[in-house]
């Protein structure tokens, strides 16, 4: 036995343990902070991370997740946290955490330092995901009607000024289309004039004319001439096919599939809509009214929630893809004799969360089975959070991110009920500028996303409401009508449906007071809007002028010219076919005459009747 060796071994083990014990925490802390910051798009900071290898525990004193939209605030922060991880999976480079306890969970907190984080280039250049695109679409749909003015209709619209600012697209597009057509016509003109079909017809005709049937005295020569004519017939047939192909190509080039009057009409309509948008002339219908009244408020946080879904999908697929089987030299192949070690890279089995919202609702709940590969855990991510405060305000958030099957499925349900509305405005729109004297609110949202099919409903209820119209309310006629309409209402229900189940994204916002507003507006400003609309439409059409009609006339004229050219060519080919056929018949007749005459001569000489 080597005593020195044993001592040396013991020293090495102790030193190794001490070095790793002292250096592992900061290394892991900075790596977790970096990866989480990249995922979040703003700083994620952990304070006092402590990894206890002997007790298999990780704990930290504080976690702050900065809000990427406002880096001086945190999306949420937690106080002390403690988690237990399993020992054996770490040998397989897997982190399996059984229980995490988050205490003092707080949302929307102020930060002392800026939480800005420079996202690496490779992350910035990543393709936008489906959910990220959806977020963009929803945001642009919200802003579409948000600034629509319904009451302050400008009856004396300065159309000259509007037109000078307007960048009309249709004239340029029509001119460009005309140039394109002209180039194409010139190409076809040249094709038909320079086609070899004409010269080949000339050659065939020359050959036909050179065959002098009357001077053929020998049946053998007649047969040779017939064979020659048969060859010519084949040539003419091929010319006919080529002419037909030219016709087909021409029709393809100028058919309805490539040119339609509808396209020009769409360009003109686009310019008109652009002018209407610049003039801020609204369409008075229940959908637009509801979207203008409640859309912005209702859908403002919506994009934010969808971004969490995008994040879950992105990191779910990225982490799951890390387990690639590679067989390199000297590495061999691993055999699996059971599914005992079929763990995902990361699996947090249970998170117990407790804390409070910015509005002091005491929140508590669970998040279960966060994993990098649900197919291995066979469990979807589920979350269930909820809480109440002393004044009976309640909040609940439940949902599931299920990636067990080929199509990812996410469902989220959220309700926030019992919040006071006294003193607040129910809508940012100028249509409803009055604060509420009394009332409580309830917001609910349900979102369901199956792969790229998206269906959601957001509801808003203002219950037991009464408006404060002020001491000297405006005597504007519209406002009077609106006041009359809403003063008798003690509840407002709004529903927003956002989905793409039938194709493009649709956002529909409806409320129980839409019709009241539509009636009030129609009886007052509707005629003014129509007049302004007609004024703009007529001016836009004047600017575009008769370009469309000119283009259509040009097209018709040029096509007629080319068609005439083609028909001339076609007639020549058909004429040549007939000539060849006639010559063939003539030759066959001559051949028969010569054969008969020969037979008669033989009969005369040997006395046998061949007929």
């Amino acid at each position, binding site marked *: *036995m*080597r005593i020195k060796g044993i001592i040396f071994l013991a020293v090495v083990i102790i030193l190794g343990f001490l070095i790793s014990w002292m250096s592992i925490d900061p290394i892991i802390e900075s790596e977790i902070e970096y990866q989480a910051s990249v995922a979040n798009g703003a700083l994620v900071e952990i304070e006092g991370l402590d990894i206890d290898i002997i007790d298999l525990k990780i704990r930290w004193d504080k976690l702050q997740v900065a809000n990427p939209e406002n880096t001086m605030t945190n999306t949420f922060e937690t106080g002390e946290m403690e988690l237990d991880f399993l020992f054996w999976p770490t*040998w397989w480079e897997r982190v399996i955490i059984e229980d995490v306890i988050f205490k003092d969970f707080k949302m929307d907190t102020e930060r002392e330092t800026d939480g800005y984080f420079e996202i690496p280039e490779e992350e910035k250049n990543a393709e936008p995901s489906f959910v990220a695109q959806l977020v963009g679409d929803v945001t642009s749909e919200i802003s579409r009607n948000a600034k629509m003015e319904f009451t302050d209709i400008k009856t004396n619209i300065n159309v000259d000024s509007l037109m000078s600012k307007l960048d009309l697209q249709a004239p340029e597009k029509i001119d460009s289309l005309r140039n394109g057509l002209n180039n194409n016509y010139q190409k076809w003109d040249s094709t038909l004039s320079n086609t070899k079909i004409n010269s080949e017809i000339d050659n065939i005709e020359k050959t036909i004319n050179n065959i002098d049937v009357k001077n053929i005295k020998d049946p053998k020569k007649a047969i040779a001439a017939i064979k020659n004519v048969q060859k010519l017939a084949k040539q003419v047939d091929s010319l006919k096919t080529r002419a037909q192909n030219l016709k087909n190509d021409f029709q393809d080039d100028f058919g309805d599939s490539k040119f339609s009057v509808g396209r020009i009409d769409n360009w003109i309509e686009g310019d008109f809509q652009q002018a209407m948008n610049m003039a801020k002339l609204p369409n008075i219908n229940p959908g637009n009214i509801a979207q203008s009244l409640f859309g912005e408020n209702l859908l403002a946080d919506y994009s934010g929630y969808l971004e969490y879904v995008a994040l879950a999908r992105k990191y779910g697929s990225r982490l799951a893809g890390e387990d690639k089987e590679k067989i390199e030299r000297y*590495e061999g192949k*691993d*055999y699996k*004799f059971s599914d*005992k070690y079929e763990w995902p890279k990361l699996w947090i089995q249970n998170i117990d969360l407790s804390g409070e919202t910015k509005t002091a609702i005491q929140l508590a709940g669970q998040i279960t089975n966060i994993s990098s590969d649900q197919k291995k855990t066979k469990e979807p991510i589920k979350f269930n959070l909820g809480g109440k405060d002393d004044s009976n305000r309640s909040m609940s958030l439940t949902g599931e991110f299920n990636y067990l099957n080929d199509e990812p499925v996410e469902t989220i349900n959220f309700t926030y009920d019992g919040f006071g509305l006294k003193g607040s405005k129910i809508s940012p729109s100028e249509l409803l500028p009055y604060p509420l004297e009394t009332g409580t609110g309830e917001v609910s949202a349900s979102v369901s996303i199956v792969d790229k099919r998206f269906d959601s409903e957001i509801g808003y209820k203002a219950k037991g409401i009464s408006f404060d119209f002020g001491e000297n309310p405006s005597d504007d006629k519209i406002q009077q009508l609106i006041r009359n309409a809403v003063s008798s209402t003690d509840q407002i229900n709004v529903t927003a449906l956002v989905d793409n189940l039938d194709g493009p994204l649709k956002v529909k916002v409806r409320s129980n007071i839409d019709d009241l507003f539509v009636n009030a507006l129609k009886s007052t400003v509707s005629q003014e809007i129509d007049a302004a609309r007609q004024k703009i439409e007529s001016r836009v059409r004047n600017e575009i002028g008769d370009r469309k009609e000119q283009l259509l006339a040009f097209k018709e004229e040029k096509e007629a010219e080319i068609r005439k050219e083609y028909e001339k060519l076609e007639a020549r080919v058909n004429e040549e076919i007939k000539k060849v056929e006639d010559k063939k018949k003539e030759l066959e007749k001559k051949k028969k005459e010569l054969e008969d005459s020969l037979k008669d001569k033989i009969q005369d000489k040997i006395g046998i009747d061949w007929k």
Partner: protein
Amino acid sequence: MFLILKYIAKLLKALSSEASPNQLAGGFVLGMIIGMTPVLSIHNLFILILVIIFKVNVGMVILAFLIFSGIAYLADPLFHSFGIWMLEHENMQATWTGMYNNELWAITKFYNTVVIGSLVSAVLLCIPMFPLTKIGVVQYRKHIHEKVMKTKFAKALKGTKLYSVYQTVVRVRG
């Protein structure tokens, strides 16, 4: 450099008469196992502990490790095929499954074709290699050692400053 030189010198010294043939052969077969199998395997930690605890010759361990690492690189496809044959052997399935489900066995990565193929090959090779090395050591001492010590390499080794420093250290340590 000093460490390598130290062990070469020690090896030459041990081969001459100092160490027993058993210690030299033990070092050789343990070095052979480390060399033939993937270095960063748990079983090699166990072998290393044996090297440190038992009085095998460390120079011999290093020599065998260097020789058999090269051989293993070339024989890797053979180990892989041998590993496949063993892991897929019908009669062994119950044993493998039992071992696989036991974490202590599983961390040895026996379920990897190259690990099991090379380890079993190395262990089997120990059976002839141990006595052969012993015979080799005896024969070396009898017939070859004198000639080796007269080679330019041995003389150059003795002539280096590092070697004299090493000798001094050995003398001081007693």
